[in-house]
């Protein structure tokens, strides 16, 4: 935005303030997060997808002028589940599962994406408060470890393993500004991503402080045949089990007939 434009905005802002007699609002920008679809159907050919969220920065008349450009961070959290990390130890010459660390309600999927390196956008305190970046993702633990076990090693291993599976994502190029007030956040959902609700949190920052937040959510659901099979297995487990037995018997019987004629 040009300098005269900013001056004009400031002028409007001051005028409004004097009219309403209000204190300067902390946040004058509003974010509207738009998704192409609010649900993604998983069908038999699902092999992961890229989700794009467009965020529009709405300024009302009270918007104060910002010196310097905006930064933006998008945080995406998948369904939460308790997850256990185990470390292998050598026991009588064999590698067996040893000490473990339980992460309660940890996101099964987590992505932190931004328009430039996280460290340049926000300070550590803010990053810790809002889970900005994988290093700052809060993971609640349960149980206690023996004194000699390094808690951080477990955490790092957990995050690293999730990253390898494509379920934890961090990128400082995932958010791009199309222009001053429209930004595009793009994150990958791998094929092994769990079904459920994914919460998208967009943070608009300026000079290391959050000036606005926007939210959206996207549901990953099974569709068509896959959905019916899943529902049947949950709602009619006995019939479902019988079906699998009947299928087995029928297949075995058919194979017997088809190949005997040959």
């Amino acid at each position, binding site marked *: 935005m040009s300098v005269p434009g900013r001056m004009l905005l400031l002028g409007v802002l001051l005028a409004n303030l004097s009219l309403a007699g209000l204190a300067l609002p902390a946040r004058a920008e509003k974010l509207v997060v738009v998704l192409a679809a609010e649900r993604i159907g*998983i*069908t*038999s*050919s*699902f*092999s*992961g997808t890229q989700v794009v969220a467009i965020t529009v920065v709405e300024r009302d008349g009270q918007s104060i002028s910002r010196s310097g450009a905006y930064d933006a961070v998008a945080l995406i959290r998948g369904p939460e*589940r*308790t*997850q*256990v*990390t*185990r*470390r*292998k130890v050598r026991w009588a*010459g*064999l*590698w*067996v*599962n040893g000490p*473990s660390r339980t992460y309660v309600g940890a996101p*099964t999927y987590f992505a932190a994406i931004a328009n430039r390196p996280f460290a340049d956008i926000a300070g550590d305190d803010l990053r810790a408060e809002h889970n900005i970046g994988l290093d700052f993702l809060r993971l609640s633990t349960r149980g206690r470890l023996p004194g000699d076990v390094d808690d951080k090693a*477990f955490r790092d*291993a*957990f995050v*690293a*393993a*999730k990253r390898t599976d494509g379920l934890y994502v961090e990128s400082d190029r995932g958010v791009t500004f199309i222009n001053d007030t429209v930004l595009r956040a793009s994150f990958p959902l791998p*094929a*092994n991503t*769990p*079904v459920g609700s994914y919460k998208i949190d967009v943070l608009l920052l300026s000079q290391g402080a959050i000036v606005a937040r926007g939210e959206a959510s996207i549901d990953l659901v*099974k569709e068509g*045949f*896959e*959905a019916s*099979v*899943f529902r049947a*297995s*949950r709602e009619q*487990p*006995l019939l*479902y*089990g*019988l*079906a*699998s*037995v009947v*299928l*087995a*018997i029928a*297949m*075995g*019987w*058919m*194979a*017997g007939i088809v*190949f005997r004629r040959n």
Partner: protein
Amino acid sequence: MTVYLPIAELTVNLFLILGIGTAVGFISGLFGVGGGFLLTPLLIFSGISPAVVVASEASQIAATAFSGALAYARRSLIDYRLGAVLVSGGVAGSLLGVWLFSLLRRVGQLDFAIGIAYLILLGGIGILMLKEAVGTMRAKLSGAPPPALRKGGDHGWAHGLPFKMRFHKSKLYMSVLPIIALGAAIGMIGSVLGVGGGFLTVPALIYLFRVPTTVAIGVSLFYTVITMSAASLLHATTNLTVDIVLSLLLMIGGVVGAQYGASVGQQMKGEELRALLALLILAVAGRFFYEFVAIPERLYSISIPDVWS
């Protein structure tokens, strides 16, 4: 071409799964075993969770065993009486096995228990079979008659036990207790390892109870159909981990592969087949052994406990 498995919640390569099913089916037709001992490790290796693998392949094993059992039934080679006694022990063993499975999963030692059990079972049986097969081959080469499995007047070691029963087809008159115990042991091992147990049942019937080989295979197939159908039903209702799409893909590959395996197997000598099977079993055991002693690639593992509850 990929396919999404609705219960495993994962996309897999269609041809990979069909290929695994066909290859294992070929081997199971060739050697007359269920092939679960190969299928479980292969599927876990392709990224499907052990709980889904063990539950879903139960119906595949039942399908392959049923097509085999039909062939044996037509030639009236199934001793239903012996099969029923074996099954009665198998049901109790399966229930115990499912309980053990969930206990081991809770304490995080399921992988270890499965690995060790495979290592000991496969290693032991592989060595025994290889010894026997090589011995027979040598005897044949030197022109001596092969050692008889069943000697005249030999009633076996379990002669003194009570509850005797006559099994005509198996040429057996013995106590039901060791048969029930065998059924229970195989049922338990089967439900923990996700195997039908044919590679245990057949040698046990032949070497321990002196049942004729063809009848032993027939009884084993009958036992496998019943216990694996029950296991499939049990997994579907308690663990909710049966992926019917995965089962179907494995069945298609399995039954086709089994037919070709069987026709190839008929052109080979029994001892050659047994030696090959022994080598295959030892190879799988070796892989488990390697995993136990080699420095792990990933020192840490993640598991999601009780996802389905």
